[in-house]
């Protein structure tokens, strides 16, 4: 139990650091940058404390906002994603997900992929809608969401496989 907490704190700090140092500077085509820091919310243990998840993802988003000068958009997107995570689990893994032991960092099945896809899309849509904040950017928001989501999913899957714990 304690080691799970430590792993989560470590993940929180490492993902934020990687995001700020590397991925925030990856302005592909001028405006596309991936946001793999939300892996923290995606990889959070399934049956652990939900209030803890919501609060820690709020802190995660707030730290990102501080570094991006963006008010509260990352915080809002992260809080929404963390609150609706159980529903996405239900959508991707079926109703009885709580009784299964879901481990995301194993071989990529369609269920796991659809979970990552839906989570990333939800987060990015909220993020870019709040960032634009005006209706006249509708197509711009859609385009940014689409391209950034593709990049986030690719980098997320790569990171999941890189930090996969060794099996003995």
């Amino acid at each position: 139990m304690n080691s799970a907490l430590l792993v989560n704190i470590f993940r929180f700090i490492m993902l934020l650091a990687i995001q700020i140092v590397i991925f925030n500077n990856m302005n592909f085509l001028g405006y596309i940058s991936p946001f793999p820091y939300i892996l923290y919310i995606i990889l959070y243990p399934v049956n652990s404390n939900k209030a803890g998840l919501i609060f820690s993802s709020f802190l995660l988003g707030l730290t990102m906002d501080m570094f991006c000068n963006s008010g509260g958009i990352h915080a809002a997107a992260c809080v929404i994603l963390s609150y609706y995570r159980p529903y996405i689990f239900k959508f991707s893994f079926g109703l009885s997900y709580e009784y299964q032991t879901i481990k995301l960092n194993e071989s990529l099945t369609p269920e796991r992929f659809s979970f990552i896809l839906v989570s990333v899309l939800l987060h990015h849509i909220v993020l870019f809608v709040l960032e634009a904040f005006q209706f006249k950017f509708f197509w711009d928001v859609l385009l940014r969401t689409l391209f950034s989501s593709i990049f986030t999913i690719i980098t997320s899957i790569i990171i999941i496989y890189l930090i996969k714990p060794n099996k003995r």
Partner: protein
Amino acid sequence: MQQIFNFIIRNSNRLLFLLLLGISLSLTIQSHSYHRSKIISSANFLSGGVYEKINRVNEYLNLRAENDELVLENARLKSLLFNQKDTTKAPLADSIKGVKPADIIVSKVIHNSYNTHENFITLNSGERQGVKPDMGVINSLGIIGVIDNTSPRYSTVVSILNMKSRINAKIKKSNHFGSLTWNGKSTGYVQLEDVPRLASIRKGDTIVTGGQSSIFPEGINIGTVDIVYKKENTSFYVIKVKLFNDMTNLGHVYIIKSKDREELINLENKRKEKNE
């Protein structure tokens, strides 16, 4: 009473969610109005410090570009020194009319964003160096933005690539005024709005800062006219301006202290009080 407690305990996650969502949404709305929240900005010690560390590494990667820029500026300084009547060259930061060299703070960009609709730049000088909100920021090529928040050691700048920014500008040869805005699309271009149709404008004309703003001195370079549009149902032009600056690649910048600013604001306030 018991039922209220039960309700709170049963819905604790939902209540926590709504509370935190409310906080973050209010921060978002605050950031979209002009006066921004002071806490969540990259001018604080944590993010400013981290950005400075990152910038120290990045500086090595940009040494070549920075050197080229310095060589160019040196060449221009020398040309000014040797033939002082050369007026075709762009004005220098410390040879701006009405600004003494002592009124300029040299600073360095430690973080630059240009991929959102509202972009901010972080500089590594703050209140200790005398930086205050609403000072103008330029570099050797043209204007960059206006100081937004300051902390003891860092400050953030509202970039001209920010949809909230409005800067008074004019056409150099004809003195017609307009306000400079950004439509959120390309990092190389900004828009000059509300220019009267009486003005004769050609592609390639230079756009400089106007004298109406108390932030920038008059006549600092901005860019050249690229395309002129007619705004429907009005008697105004909208001009697409190609910037002299590459806003995606900024190094050292100059912050302009405007001493007349307080006097000007006081004067205007006095007039307003009289009217009331």
